[in-house]
């Protein structure tokens, strides 16, 4: 079939069974937008900023497990999208990002809206392409989707000059992807797996250390069974929230900088870490030389470069978590005695009793942790939860009762403020039957507030709950603790009227100062099923605790902070 490059993009998206893309048009991508206009196979959601288009595609990808697609124009369209692309790279989110480029004849001339897009995206994509001939487009687009979803998933960027989208060439999408330089190892080495299971059988205090890879490989259910069968307790990283049900007795909690005391102590006391799809991030490990000092390490990861990068693995296993855990379970069934870890369970129960995650109520002032818990009580499993970045994000990770994988959606690696709202729009689009809640802060929400218009236009009713403390709270917290209370540029006392703001876009707004008002607002927003901003006035100086100060050891947590 002889068609234009622009039509090839459409045909490729159809062949990949794409049902929605998020984007923003502009000069260099107009040929493709013209082809989008003339098709009805997939929906195009016009976000109000290119960064939001990529975050929405990320939210969609994380909630659905499919590859998210974003489309933008050249120059500023592309540079606006870079934050989203980098975010997806850090959190291994499968995306295909298609950008327009100035015509081939103008590349290198500093043309209008020209930027070296592949030069910029190179360090923050899994792979990228500059398409120089339309005849390469079918192969490149097919490779892009294949690379995005296989191995360690990630964003793939395809930059297409305007004349290439106009050029007519043969479209054949039937050829299988052939990449002799790219063959991810998905099946773990059986000898290593055998050794690892032997180590598990001999361990006294083994601990499952679950990372985001468990969720992206679709292994959460299997890991639940593995943990239950062997009775090995588990800690989750920030990215892995929802892998185990919050009420699972074997789930300790989240570990790391704002993890629970019990989770961090368990990591410090364990004699065998079973790392699954986790990458020993500095926010998890604290001081490396003190991390899991008493333990041998099993590390299962699809990315060989993640293994022994920071913490030396005694049992490195390259492979897909799902395959490897399957093999482990077959061996563990006969080899691992689930009754042998009784004393270890008691130790952990004591840690939990000693310092459970908690906060103190103070009269009538709303505590942000209460708000998170309350959303959990009222919506629980019916909601998908996104967040922005900061204190509210940590409180949500700590206190929300997650019950399933892909319920939780937040910017972990890059820590992108402004992520939450557009991502929650993508989540809603992927899972229309559930309520999409974005728990956010008064700082973060303003970083992509224009997406109110997108959510209203496409009837994607996201409920934004703003934990409003009139501060850039996390930075304020560090300034209070480590910078002698010099609150440099973190006071956000001057604010918009969030109620009017929501209304002016056609959404609904609430300002809430009491528990009763909060309940009423959330119920009303859910009932009305419209885009909402719930502006919750919370205790201003609340800190996220416990905390491992940067560079500190996990077992040396700051459990409370007394204002001097």
């Amino acid at each position, binding site marked *: 079939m002889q068609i234009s490059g622009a039509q090839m993009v459409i045909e490729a998206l159809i062949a990949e069974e794409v049902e929605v893309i998020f984007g923003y048009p502009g000069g260099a991508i107009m040929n493709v937008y013209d082809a989008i206009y003339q098709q009805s196979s997939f929906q195009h959601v016009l976000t109000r900023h290119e960064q939001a288009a990529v975050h929405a595609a990320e939210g969609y990808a994380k909630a659905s497990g499919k590859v998210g697609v974003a489309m933008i124009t050249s120059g500023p369209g592309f540079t606006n999208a870079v934050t989203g692309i980098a975010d997806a790279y850090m959190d291994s989110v499968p995306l295909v990002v298609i950008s327009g480029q100035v015509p081939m004849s103008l590349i290198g001339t500093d043309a209008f809206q020209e930027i070296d897009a592949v030069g910029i995206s190179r360090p923050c994509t899994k792979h990228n392409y500059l398409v120089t001939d339309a005849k390469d487009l079918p192969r490149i687009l097919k490779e892009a989707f294949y690379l995005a979803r296989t191995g360690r998933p990630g964003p793939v960027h395809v930059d297409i000059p305007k004349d290439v989208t106009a050029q007519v060439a043969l479209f054949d999408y039937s050829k299988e992807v052939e990449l*002799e*330089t790219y063959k991810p190892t998905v099946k773990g080495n059986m000898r290593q797996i055998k050794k690892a299971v032997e180590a598990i059988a001999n361990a006294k205090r083994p601990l499952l250390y679950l990372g985001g890879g468990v969720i992206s490989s679709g292994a959460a259910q299997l890991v639940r069974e593995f943990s239950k069968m062997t009775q090995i307790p588990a800690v989750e990283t920030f990215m892995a929230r929802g892998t185990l049900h919050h009420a699972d007795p074997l789930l300790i909690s989240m570990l790391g900088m704002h993890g629970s005391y019990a989770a961090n102590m368990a990591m410090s006391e364990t004699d065998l870490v079973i790392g699954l799809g986790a990458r020993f991030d500095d926010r998890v490990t604290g001081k490396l030389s003190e991390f899991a000092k008493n333990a041998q390490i099993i590390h299962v990861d699809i990315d060989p470069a993640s293994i022994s*990068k920071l913490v030396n693995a005694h049992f490195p296993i390259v492979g897909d978590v799902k395959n490897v855990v399957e093999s482990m379970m077959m061996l563990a069934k006969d080899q691992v005695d689930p009754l042998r870890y009784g004393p270890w369970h008691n130790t952990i129960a004591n840690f939990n009793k000693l310092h459970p995650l908690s906060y103190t109520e103070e009269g009538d002032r709303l505590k942000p942790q209460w708000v998170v818990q309350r959303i959990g009580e009222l919506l629980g499993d019916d909601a998908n939860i996104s967040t922005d970045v900061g204190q509210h994000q940590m409180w949500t990770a700590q206190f929300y009762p997650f019950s399933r994988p892909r319920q939780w959606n937040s910017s972990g690696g890059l820590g992108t403020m402004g992520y939450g709202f557009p991502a929650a729009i993508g989540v809603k689009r992927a899972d229309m039957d559930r309520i999409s809640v974005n728990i956010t802060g008064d700082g973060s929400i303003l970083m992509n507030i224009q997406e109110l218009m997108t959510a209203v236009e496409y009837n994607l009713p996201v409920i934004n709950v703003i934990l409003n403390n009139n501060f850039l709270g996390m930075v304020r917290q560090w300034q209070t603790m480590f910078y002698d209370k010099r609150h440099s540029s973190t006071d956000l006392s001057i604010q918009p009227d969030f109620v009017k703001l929501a209304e002016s876009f056609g959404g609904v707004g609430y300002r809430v100062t009491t528990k009763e008002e909060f309940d009423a607002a959330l119920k009303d927003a859910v009932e009305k099923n419209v885009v909402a901003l719930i502006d919750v006035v919370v205790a201003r100086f609340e800190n996220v605790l416990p905390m491992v100060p940067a560079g500190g050891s996990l077992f040396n947590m700051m459990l409370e902070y007394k204002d001097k």
Partner: protein
Amino acid sequence: MEQARRVISVIVLNEASVLSRIAGLFSGRGYNIESLTVAPIPDSKYSRITIVTAGSIKVVEQIIKQLHKLIPVLKVYEHEDLVEKEMAMVKIPLSESLGDIEALAHAYNGRIVNVGSDTLIVMVADEPMRVGHFLEAIKRFHPKEIVRSGSVALER
């Protein structure tokens, strides 16, 4: 940790921007490059890049894994037992003694390759350390310009 000199060979698809992927990886992750050479492998769609770097065993392990992770990279070798050669050319004023220069170059597997109206060019090809020695020795002939090729290496 012990910082040792390492020679790494990378076999890559010979396609646009592959070199910037490699170079970008080194700069982006803070690895250092002492020298880098690249040329196509005859009768194939691949190129061979030879990189001389320095780092601890752990760092070099990471470099190799990160290189492998790049999509157009086919193979990465870290050389243990290798034959390594480098080429250098030096431009020298014609006022110096041709015979002495020729004799010196000869000791380092080289010779005078060009004689112009007021300068000559001498080249040597030898192990990188010996090339360094040659460049020390040639100093007394007042070299005007020096160019080194960077290392190429083959496993024994």
